[in-house]
């Protein structure tokens, strides 16, 4: 409130004040929109899950952790740093993504996965709940850059077969394999 009053009483001409205000609002709204876009959108359908039903709490955890995993996958491949992969990817998925980051760094390439949406469908949930197989129809804008120069951009729709297992406090991605179709 005090800030608004200071702004109102400032010595700036009214027109200039309006222009600066509008620019500020436009800047903030653009950046808020970008921030909203950068977070992957994940939905999960468990209607076909068998032999075990996916409990509501498990559904929420899977959506939360898968979303977090993809946000960090994007971060890792954009910054060529394996750090963001830790704790969210395990086993084979972790090894492969670490290799991907290492070879990107070596060849000077970076990748970006923008505007991600993931439609997950639970295909198999083990009787004891220790592994779940998901079908992910992922849609994103893929951008591949060599030293900052875009060499490939596409709006891709990719099918992934995903294996997730429960860890101590989260679900981790163990297998992330793109397939031509389900």
């Amino acid at each position, binding site marked *: 409130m005090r800030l608004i009053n200071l702004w109102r009483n400032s010595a700036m001409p009214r027109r200039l004040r309006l222009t600066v205000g509008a620019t500020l609002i436009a800047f903030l709204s653009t950046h808020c929109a970008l921030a909203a876009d950068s977070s992957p959108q994940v939905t999960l359908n468990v209607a076909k899950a068998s*032999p075990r039903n996916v409990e509501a709490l498990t559904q929420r955890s899977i959506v939360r952790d898968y979303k977090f995993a993809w946000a960090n996958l994007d971060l890792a491949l954009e910054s060529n740093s394996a750090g963001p992969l830790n704790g969210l990817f395990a086993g*084979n998925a972790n*090894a*492969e*993504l670490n*290799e*991907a980051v290492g*070879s*990107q760094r*070596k*060849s*000077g*390439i970076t*990748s970006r996965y923008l505007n991600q949406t993931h439609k997950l469908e639970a*295909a*198999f949930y*083990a*009787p*004891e709940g*220790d*592994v779940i*197989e998901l*079908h992910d129809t992922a849609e994103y804008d*893929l951008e*591949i850059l*060599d030293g900052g120069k875009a*060499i*490939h951009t*596409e709006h*891709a729709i*990719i099918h992934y*077969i995903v*294996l997730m297992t429960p860890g101590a406090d989260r679900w981790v991605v163990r*297998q*992330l*394999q*793109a*397939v*031509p179709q*389900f």
Partner: protein
Amino acid sequence: MSSSINTVCRNRRLRCCAYGIALACCLSAAVLAQDLSLRAPSGAVAGSAASIGTSGSGSATFYMIGPSLSLKRDVELGQDITLSSQELQTAGRYIAIVCTNNCSSVGFFVAPAKPVNLTFLVHPSRAPVAQNDAVSGVALTFDEYHNLVIAPTAIQFQLAAKGSSPASHGAQTHDGIAWFRTSSGKSAGPLQVSASLSNEVTARRVVQQVASEPCNLRIKGERTSKGIVVETDPLRDCSGNPVPDGTVVTFTAKNGNLTSSVDSPVKQDVARATMLATGPVIISAASGVAMGNELRLGGKE
């Protein structure tokens, strides 16, 4: 009049010129696009070499981005780009890109190789006997590069317990997974569970089948100088298996309004307790859902 004819002619010439330039642009773009066209390998399999066809001439930069690798190298257009078996070990989607002044790309999939590894999850490690759907197993098929083999594969599950003929169950993987669920056997002891992949690869696990809850509980006791010593007959489950050591039996002594209880673990099939009580008492025992007989001391049983 003549000036208007001239204007028309000039306009027509200009239009012709513009069409010519546009056509030339389109042609040159088409030629450039043709120069950079790539032919993706068809039916690429993990761990097998493949090649990408290129058209055009001159040198270019080739990039390939896969699930676990990114590579960049110089290539000659018009020649096939060879991809080694090491470069195609991971199944998934690859993007091949060739750049000169502009870039052209093609995407392709690498399929998993044949299954040679099994991940076999069996639960639980200890199961009570004669329980419905007590034992379950999940088998996942992988190739030698740790890719999940999606193609249907036959898996043979076998369950063998001491003293009974082995049971076999065949299943086909669906998206790399096959599973079974079965009841536990009637005898306590190890249950050997195995999953086989065309008899070449076998994964084995052991489930320890243990006795279920005690079925019949009978107690006997006598007064001694130290108190009342009570003990059970050897404890068995309903299938006749001796219950495991450590199974708790609760002895309760009632003397009028006074009640006292003692929890005693089973040792070598029998649970024992010494209870301090004077006068006539009624002693009973319970373990799990089984209730024992009542024992009356100081009166009649």
